[in-house]
């Protein structure tokens, strides 16, 4: 049963096929591109394709918020990849791939398995009819029944913020982490040995 927008079903189908094929191709290009920035922005293109399809499925808010989130996230991912990869811009084409065959088998296997579930599985046919109040329903849901999900997500995000900064930041409130911070003494009163001390070398 094909679903079209109010007065152009053919137009919606063509758009859907463009977005779907574009998204999958962009996904494939992600792991083929040499330059890290291109890989990140091919992933962003794939997400944009998915966001387009979500728009066609009348999940307008989800599609747009996915696009908004992914713009920031993919740029950060590109920046981090460029920061740590040996050859960030792909000037020396090399393939950083290992256990290639098992990966292909696993990928194709996952695809076939899930596709089979999708095609042969029976799913209840209860299509969405009135799509005007979608975002409002989500709002009511968030504040009403799923308020726990909403607040725990808040706490989880706080934990993420503190955790990621504690892990990543080198310079905390009391100065650089590895400077002057002495390892705890094994015996409570024993004099602690600071890393880099002359005595430290003899012992290690």
């Amino acid at each position, binding site marked *: 049963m094909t679903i079209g*927008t*109010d007065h*152009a079903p053919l*137009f*919606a189908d063509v*758009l859907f096929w463009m977005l779907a094929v574009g998204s999958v191709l962009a996904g494939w290009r992600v792991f083929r591109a040499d330059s890290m920035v291109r890989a990140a922005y091919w992933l962003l293109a794939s997400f944009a394709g998915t966001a*387009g399809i979500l*728009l*066609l499925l009348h999940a*307008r*808010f989800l599609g747009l*918020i996915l696009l*908004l*989130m992914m713009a*920031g*996230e993919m740029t*950060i991912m590109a*920046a*981090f990849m*460029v*920061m*740590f*990869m040996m050859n*960030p*811009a792909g*000037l020396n084409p090399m393939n950083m791939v290992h256990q290639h065959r098992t990966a292909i088998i696993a990928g194709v296997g996952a695809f076939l398995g899930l596709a089979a579930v999708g095609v042969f599985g029976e799913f209840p046919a209860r299509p969405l009819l009135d799509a005007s109040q979608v*975002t*409002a329903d*989500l*709002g*009511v849901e*968030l*504040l009403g029944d799923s*308020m726990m999900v*909403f*607040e725990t*997500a*808040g*706490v989880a*995000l*706080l934990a*993420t*913020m*503190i955790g*990621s*900064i*504690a892990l*990543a*930041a*080198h*310079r*905390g*409130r009391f100065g650089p982490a590895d400077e002057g911070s002495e390892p705890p003494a094994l015996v409570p009163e024993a004099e602690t040995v600071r890393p880099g001390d002359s005595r430290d070398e003899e012992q290690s």
Partner: protein
Amino acid sequence: MITAGALLMVVGTTTIALLVLRWVGGAVRRETIPEPQRLPFLGGNPPTTHAWSRYHIRYYAMALLFLAFDMEMVFMYPWAVVFVREGTVALVEMLMFIVILLLGILYAWREGALEWA
């Protein structure tokens, strides 16, 4: 109006702009660009290496903070739509959510994670 129209318009504008750029670039007689004209501009001296490098972004702690804080917007848009209908309960719930997230920013500020590393 259908949002697909907006999408189409974006794709259309981008491709048209791209084609105009390429065609106009081509209209001016284009010899191939000689090597000395390709030298990156540093004020007169040649660069010793490629500029593409493992660029040390000094604000990586702030970027991580952004990743987590970005989710706050996702929850705030639907809240804004139904806020007036739901009344003060919604206000209190969102206030709790926001205060929790502001604690994260306070922690990052105190740890100096917002400054350049």
